[in-house]
Structure formats: structure tokens, C-alpha cells
């Protein structure tokens, strides 16, 4: 395990700036999750660390050693790919043994067998070791792919949406497993996901990327409670943060320069009431029943808010509601955060 440092790294594909001036330090044993929409440059960042892409600018160091010009094999990293993760012509066992059998590594065969079996046990794929890699379900493939990363102890594990093709139950199981393994091994991990639950639960720190730029990095709590922009704020929280033009809430005490108010469920107090009694008046559009909770869709002016509500709040379609804000977030016209008061 080692510290990984990216310094001002940039990479373009033709006119597309996939990664721009990205600086990031991943401490030894840290679990950093990159969040961002599709095409933001997350995969490219991982590929740069792995050495699969050469950066045009900046440098990359692993464990204090500058590896910017080194080939992937010399970097001692592992990569769990977004897709095509397994060698289709090999059995599961051979897939897991593949990294250990590299001519550069020369691990003796009995030791390979021991490692492969213990990793297979950990990921509960022991009974599939003889299968061809193509004769597995998507979830099993993904576990083998993770297993292939776990058979050796690299400087850093790079994982590109490793749980994306799993069903919800397996995903949460593996999420817990992954966190446990990481703590047990003290592994350094750089992890990409679209799933905010994964980001929130796994990460020591979350980095939010937009168009190749690292917009904000911090603990999950920091990112959630203290986003630097409306963009970052909209990455986390379910349902997503509601952004309303301040013009719709003229009575709200907003800091200077703010044009938008951002409100998550916990920032909203909604009650059935006559118009004019709250900061904003709205109308319940419809109620989605999720089981333990409801999604409440409320129209305010020409905008719509989505918030969680208790199933026995008694609110129903057509109700007029008064909405109050409790310490919401404010953003300026460019989307940057404006601190209240």
C-alpha cells in the first residue's frame, strides 16, 4: 500500500479535455471515491493512474516514486474495469491466477492455489472455479473481477464501478464486504461510482468531478452538508436537492448575491395550510409510495419540489401546503455556494 499523488494532471482526446489540471492526493490506506456524471473523466483518471493513458501535463507518483513515464506493469496497481473484466478463454480459477502467473512475478503454483482459493472463499465463488469465465452470471463475473484484484497486494486498487451490474441485494452485501476487506488490508483504493449510497458508505473522502475537473474533495459528510456549488450539491442526496429561484420565495432571508435556494428534505418543513402562511405556498402534485417513505411532489409556481414525507403525514394530491425552509443552501447565478449570514 502506498500514497498516490496526482499533480496537475491533464489528458485530452482530440478536442475533448477528459481530465484537466487534476490534483489529488490519496493517502496510504485511504478509500477515495470519485463521483461525477457520465463523461466527466472518472475512468480516464483511473487509467492515468494505472498507466494506460499518458498524461499531457502533470505528474503521478505512487509511494513517493514518480511513475508518470512508467508502463502499467511497473506500477503495481490493480484495475477492476467497468466492463470486459474477465478473460473469456480462461476458467474462473485461471482468471484469478492470471496476475500471479505473470512472468515478472513468478509465484510458485502451490502458493497461487492457496491465494486463489482463499479469495474465492472470500467472494463466495469457490464452487465456480472450474467454470469458463463466460459461464457466469453478471454478478458472479463482477465478483471474479474484484477477486482478480484481490489476489495480489498492489500499491493501489483502482475500481471502475465494480458493483454496477449487480442486483441491489448483492450490491449492498459486496459493499459491506469491500469496506471490511479494505479496513482489514489497510488497502488504498480509488473507486468510481454513480451510486451515492456506495460513495457515502465506502469513502473516506469523496471527490466530485465535472468535465475533467475536480470540483470538491472532502469527507462524505462535508460534501453532503457543505457543497461548494449547486452542481456538487446535486450529486448527493435522494431525492436530489431542490433548486428554486429565490424569486419564488421573496420572504426568505437570503445572503447577498444569492439567486437560488437549494433545499433537501431536511431543509423543508411542509404542512397543510392556507396560502400565505409559510415562506412559500405550493400544491401537492402527486405522492409516490416507496413503502417505508413517500416521495412528495409539490409544485411551487412553475417549479416542482420533490421531498420525502412520512406515509402517515396525511398529505394527498391537490392539497395546498405551506413550505418553510430551515437553514437551506444558497447559490449565486453561476451556481457557486453563497454562505448564509
Amino acid at each position: 500500500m502506498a500514497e498516490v499523488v496526482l499533480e496537475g494532471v491533464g489528458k485530452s482526446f482530440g478536442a475533448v479535455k477528459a481530465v484537466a489540471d487534476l490534483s489529488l492526493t490519496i493517502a496510504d490506506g485511504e478509500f477515495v471515491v470519485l463521483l461525477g456524471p457520465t463523461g466527466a473523466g472518472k475512468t480516464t483518471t483511473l487509467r492515468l493512474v494505472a498507466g494506460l493513458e499518458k498524461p499531457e501535463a502533470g505528474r503521478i507518483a505512487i509511494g513517493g516514486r514518480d511513475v508518470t513515464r512508467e508502463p502499467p506493469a511497473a506500477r503495481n496497481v490493480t484495475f477492476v474495469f467497468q466492463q470486459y473484466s474477465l478473460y473469456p478463454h480462461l476458467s474462473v480459477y485461471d482468471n484469478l491466477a492470471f496476475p500471479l502467473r505473470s512472468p515478472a512475478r513468478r509465484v510458485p503454483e502451490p502458493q497461487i492455489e492457496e491465494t486463489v482459493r482463499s479469495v474465492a472463499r472470500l467472494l463466495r465463488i469457490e464452487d465456480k472455479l472450474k467454470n469458463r469465465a463466460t459461464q457466469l452470471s453478471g454478478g458472479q463475473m463482477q465478483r471474479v473481477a474484484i477477486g482478480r484484484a484481490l489476489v495480489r497486494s498492489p500499491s493501489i486498487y483502482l475500481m471502475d464501478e465494480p458493483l454496477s451490474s449487480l442486483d441491489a441485494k448483492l450490491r449492498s452485501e459486496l459493499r459491506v464486504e469491500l469496506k471490511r476487506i479494505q479496513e482489514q488490508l489497510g488497502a488504498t483504493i480509488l473507486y468510481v461510482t454513480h451510486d451515492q449510497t456506495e460513495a457515502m458508505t465506502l469513502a473516506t473522502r469523496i471527490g466530485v468531478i465535472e468535465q475533467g475537473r475536480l470540483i470538491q474533495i472532502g469527507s462524505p459528510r462535508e460534501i453532503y452538508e457543505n457543497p461548494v456549488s449547486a452542481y456538487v450539491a446535486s450529486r448527493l442526496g435522494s431525492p436530489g436537492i431542490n433548486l428554486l429561484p429565490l424569486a419564488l420565495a421573496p420572504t426568505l432571508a437570503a445572503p447577498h448575491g444569492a439567486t437560488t435556494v437549494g433545499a433537501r428534505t431536511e431543509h423543508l418543513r411542509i404542512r397543510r395550510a392556507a396560502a400565505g402562511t409559510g415562506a412559500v405556498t405550493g400544491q401537492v402534485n402527486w405522492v409516490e409510495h416507496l413503502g417505508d417513505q413517500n416521495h412528495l411532489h409539490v409544485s411551487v409556481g412553475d417549479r416542482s419540489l420533490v421531498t420525502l414525507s412520512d406515509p402517515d403525514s396525511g398529505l394527498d394530491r391537490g392539497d395546498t401546503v405551506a413550505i418553510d425552509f430551515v437553514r437551506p443552501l444558497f447559490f449565486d447565478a453561476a451556481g457557486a455556494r453563497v454562505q448564509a449570514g
Partner: protein
Amino acid sequence: MSAGLTTAHSVVEPGRLSKRIATIVVVLYAVLTLLPLGWIFLTSLKSPPDSISYPPKVVFQPTIEGYCNLFTTRSRQTADYIKSLPPPSGSCEQIARDRNMVVVGTSNYAPRFLNSLIIAFGSTFCAVTLGTLAAYGFSRFKVPLADDLLFFILSTRMMPPIAVAIPIYLMYRELGLSDTKVGMILLYTAVNVSLAVWLLKGFIDEIPREYEEAAMIDGYTRLQAFRKVVLPQAATGIAATAIFCLIFAWNEYAFAVLLTSGEAQTAPPFIPIIIGEGGQDWPAVAAGTTLFLIPILVFTVLLRKHLLRGITFGAVRK
């Protein structure tokens, strides 16, 4: 879905009627192409008089005379001389004596056949090896002018190879490559390599790079990753390409006639020579042709599974 109307499992599968028509067409075509081959095989088992009898005989007494004549050279002797000889040592000797001849040696068919094997398999090996490496290069690296180079490679196939016969003949004479196995292997490799590059590039393009990237991260060099990851997955394409190359090199006639006469002569130009030797010995010719078909048949059957998948150009890989 209305049951019983069709046996097709999915809408893209042809219906029963079109399947039946397809079967009839395929069977007709197979009969048409197999008929001459069957006739050649029958002829190879006929005696020379039977082989030229009119109307042609379908029922006849089979004999191995054609095969004997193919592999031996014989000389005509007087009946008295033949009577003075010790009893015949084998059935071929016996057959020869029945026609007032004695076997005086072995014919050139076996060495010519061996030449064919060496040259065809040798050139196939070279063409497929070069083709695989070149295709990999074109597929994975930014080769300057890649499109032009690929077009150039293809353009070597645009004229019939025999169009360059005279320059090659002169070149080979100058270089001392005429009538050498090396020369023939080089020539057939040169003709086949363009086909190999184009076919294999398609196959290798279809193998996602991620596999090699994964291998390179797993501690393999590019060449090791190529061997461990790309080659096994390109096996289908390599097999199909090898068959195409082998068929060309095995059957090639024009250059073989032009450039070989002795040491490196292949079987195709040798077979017509049999016709000329002492009357038209059709059973021997047929025997030579029948045996000539065997290697390609064996090779194709061995690789059939790959070939069938290969001809669809990787579309149903997995």
C-alpha cells in the same frame, strides 16, 4: 404467440418453408460439386480399359492398379523375360506383370507430394504468422498512413498473381530461387499475406483492448499479453485464415509450373505429367488427384468448428 404455426424460436429465424428451400438448394449444390470428386475417386479404382470404356462404367471390378501406377515406374518386357523372373514380391508387381511390364522404380509422386506439403504448410505458417503480427499492429497502434498501407496491401490482390509471372520468373532466376522450396514458400507467403492481414485485422479489432490492458496491469508485457490473451481469442480467425491460405498454396498451379520443374516441384504440375507418360493412364491421374485432396480435407475437418464460426467474421464469437 400462436402455437404450432412455426418451429422458429425467434423472429429472426427463417420459417419452415424457407428452411426447406434452403436445404434443397444446399443439397443440389453439394451433389453438383461432389459428383466430379466421386467420379474421380471411382476412376482411381478402375483398370485403364474400364476408365475409358464407353458408355462409362459405374459397376466394375475395383483394382489398385491406378495407385500402383501412380507410385511406380514400369518398363515393358517380353513375356519370356517375365516368365524367367522369380515370383512377384507384391500385388503391384503382379499387376504390372499381368500387363507385360516390370516395376523398375518408384515414381516422383511421393517426393512431389512431400514438396507440396512442405511448401503449402510452410507458406501458410509464414503468411498467418506475419498476418497476425501485422494485423495486431494495424489494429492496436497508430500506424502512420495506416489506411493507405492497408489499401496497398489489399491492392496486391487486385490483379491475378500470374500477371507478374514474368518479372517474378526473371527475379527468381537471378536470385537463384527458381525451383527451390524456399522460393515457393516465399512466393505463396507473399500472395497470402495480404489476405491474412485483412481477415485477421477484422478478428483482432473485435477483441476488446481491455483484455490486454488488464493483462498489462497484471504484470505482463505487451508481447506476453499478446500471447496469453490475444492469440487464444483470435484462434478462430487464425484457423479460418490458415485454411484459406492453405487451400490457395495447395492448389496453386500456374506459378508451380513456371518456377518448378524438379527439386521443388509440387503435386499439381506433376499430376498432368502422368497423363503424358506412356499413354493416358487415367486411373493413375485419378489416384493422384484423390490422394491430393486428402490433406486439405483432413485439415479442414480438423479446423471445421473454427472455420464455420470464422467465416461469419467473428460475428458470433464467444
